[in-house]
């Protein structure tokens, strides 16, 4: 891989999470890959190819049948975008009745023994996967809500890894060959840092060791991950057309914060005050003005970007956008009520505490903390939250700068001007 720095380090790291209270063992293994335009499509295609058959389970239905034999284990090979990097992730949630051997055998088939001929993925499999990915990319805009959110995210982080589409690019797809993907897979095995997680009973530690041993990774020059700072930019107003009745509106804000900053917790509270279930935007835009059905504000834990999303009538889009900005400015200028602040803190407290009730939430949380480098457990996270004051939240509001106003609309005449 070009444009990545290499360093000497342990390629594979293991994490055990106590999951005695759950009825399943959950396993997550991912390869960290720096997200670049030149590898995004290869990565998306690789994830597709790796699901289509293994040495032992050579067809899509054979893989499915093997998982069914394991009491219907849930499994996935997918790309998870985390800020400016992508994780080629292999996951499995499987009943504790299923033996360690069966579990590892299944996962290792996917990770280490995909169906190959002379060390290359079968050409017909790659061709079929190119067709699948092409159709998926062409149809991205069919799901209006998620497409609008994704586009706004990419536009707000343009020129950064976070702005790269981890689903791949149509124009890069057709030129890819089996040799490209097979070579890229070898690169990933050789250079990507690998993180393995097991959430289960105490024998999960053993499982981790065996998993790592069986992967037998011989990493040489590991890819390195660098944080890029975001350039200041004027707000861009973008409208894209689609065949739809409503207009999806997404406003992206730069908080100027990094996920490892203590002040990042103030941003979370601000998003909840404004865009939580009972937030100020819901009260004003939906309940008082009746402009929309759904409205929310969330912040991205890896990039420090915050997004307000809603669906409105095309004629109301500009008014709604200016109302959102007005409400936010009002918080920056006049502060927030202590009651609203307390309610928001309570809701975030609940969400952080809820992580411990889901194996996947726990593993995702632990992995993110590891990648960010903060390594806070949920108790420490709650303490940081408790330190946030009303003034901190107002400061976070004052620092927000509008980066992108995005509309996906069916209105022929729509214009931001």
């Amino acid at each position, binding site marked *: 891989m070009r444009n990545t720095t290499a360093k000497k380090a342990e390629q594979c790291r293991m994490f055990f999470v106590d999951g005695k*209270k759950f009825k*399943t063992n959950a396993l997550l293994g991912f390869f960290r890959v720096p997200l670049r335009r030149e590898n995004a499509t290869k990565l998306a295609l690789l994830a597709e190819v790796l699901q289509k058959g293994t040495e032992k389970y050579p067809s899509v239905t054979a893989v499915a049948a093997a998982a069914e034999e*394991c*009491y*219907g284990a849930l499994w996935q090979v997918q790309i998870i975008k985390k800020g400016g990097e992508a994780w080629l992730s292999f996951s499995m949630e499987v009943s504790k009745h299923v033996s360690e051997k069966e579990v590892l055998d299944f996962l290792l088939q996917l990770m280490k023994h995909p169906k190959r001929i002379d060390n290359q993925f079968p050409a017909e499999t790659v061709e*079929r996967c190119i067709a699948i990915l092409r159709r998926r990319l*062409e149809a991205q805009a069919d799901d*209006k809500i998620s497409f609008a959110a994704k586009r706004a995210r990419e536009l707000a982080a343009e020129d950064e890894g976070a702005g790269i589409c981890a689903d791949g690019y149509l124009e890069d797809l057709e030129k890819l060959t089996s040799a490209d993907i097979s070579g890229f897979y070898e690169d990933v095995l050789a250079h990507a840092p690998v993180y393995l997680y097991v959430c289960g009973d105490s024998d999960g530690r053993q499982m981790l060791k065996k998993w790592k041993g069986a992967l037998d990774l011989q990493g040489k020059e590991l890819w390195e991950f660098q944080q890029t700072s975001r350039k200041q930019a004027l707000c861009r107003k973008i409208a894209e057309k689609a065949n739809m009745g409503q207009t999806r509106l997404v406003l992206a804000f730069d908080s100027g914060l990094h996920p490892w900053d203590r002040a990042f917790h103030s941003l979370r509270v601000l998003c909840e005050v404004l865009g939580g*279930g009972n937030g100020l935007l819901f009260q004003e835009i939906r309940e008082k003005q*009746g402009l929309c059905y759904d409205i929310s504000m969330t912040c991205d834990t890896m990039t420090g970007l915050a997004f307000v999303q809603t669906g409105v009538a095309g004629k109301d889009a500009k008014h709604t956008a200016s109302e959102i900005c007005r409400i936010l400015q009002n918080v920056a200028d006049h502060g927030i009520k202590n009651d609203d602040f307390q309610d928001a803190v309570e809701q975030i407290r609940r969400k952080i505490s809820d992580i411990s009730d889901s194996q996947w939430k726990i593993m995702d949380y632990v992995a993110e903390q590891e990648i960010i480098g903060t390594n806070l457990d949920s108790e420490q996270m709650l303490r940081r939250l408790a330190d946030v004051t009303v003034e901190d939240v107002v400061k976070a509001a004052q620092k927000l700068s509008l980066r992108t106003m995005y509309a996906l609309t069916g209105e022929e005449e729509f214009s931001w001007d």
Partner: protein
Amino acid sequence: MGLMRHGAGETILRERAAAGMRCCIYPKKQFGEKFAAVVVPFGSNDVCCQGENSEKPIRFPLGVAHFIEHKLFQQSWGDALFQFGKQGAAANAFTDGEKTVYYFSCRENFMENLRLLLDFVQHPCFQEEDVEKEKSIIRSEIRMGKDDANRAAYETMVDLMYQKHPVRFPVAGTEESVKNTTAEKMQKVYDACYLPQKFWLICAGDVDDHQIMEATALVQEKESTGKIVYCKEPDTIQERYREIAMGLRRPVFQVGFKLEPGERNLREKLAMELLMDLWAGESSPFFLEAYEKDLLDAPLERMYSCGNGFAFCAFMGSGEQAEETAELLLTHWKRLKQNGIDENHFRRLQKKAVGQTLRLFQSISAIGLTQIELTPFDADLSDLFRLTKELHKKDLEKLLQNTIAQDKMVLSVMR
């Protein structure tokens, strides 16, 4: 305490409150999340009510169950939704064809939140001005749904299948029916259909069953003023095929099979679901052939639905060749009928179903939401677990002989 049931190493408590409300409690000590729901057996299919003393049934506005769901949080003292937030809970509600559900999830103040839930569902405060204001929000919800190709495909499919039964109408009604809904009409419908003796209360988490049962004393029985009636639905479908242009790059489609509605039977539902998996699931010969012929990139999603006066099964997917996919589905049904069910395939899918059921027990909200779906069957998760394990190939073979018919197949395609 009433009946104590066991399944998958869990205990389930079943009890009736003084007012007759059914209670189902899942104590889960190791989890911090706590969940409670009130299930009102009144949904968007319930549009016609025969009064005790009237000759002609009264017709409700379409979507009124959903409208009530939106406005019931509004109380004389303020907004119950905000109050839940203040008490550390996340509350919400939903409506489907057969029920309206109000629920919350929290970690602390469970009993305060439960009392709030039991109180607000019994005290509507429909004000004309509020109802008027809500119309634009519901209109926005309806329009949002119209941009959702999968929802549009589903609504078209049921409309193709049913000629009279209200299952063919959208849950939220239409913009026109919403416009014609008034606070007065909502109150009348509420009085006729929100009967606490027919409610279900579902609780899950580290909760105290004695305290819960004490709190149910808040629920008061109400006199029934009529009963919901359904018009007779012809056996035949309304129309076989409909295509709607939505400007999609990849068409989505739903293949539906109208079935004979019968008595509710959980065992039969589970058998049908297993049979559908066997027929068209991810390891089925159908999927392999559809994948190899480039008809499908991913397995079809499957759904079996039954209720008062209706039953159907449906397959949802995306692809350019919906007609060919539907035909292939039928071909494989015939093949299955002719060749019988492979014992190994059946056992494997039963094992999968057992594993799926077991997994439900490890999430408080999954327990709660699954139990909500089991209320029309008067069943709980222990029944689900037991019946899944007890299923026999013969159950499926019975269904194989007399359920799916080619002339009851419909196809909706969104392009």
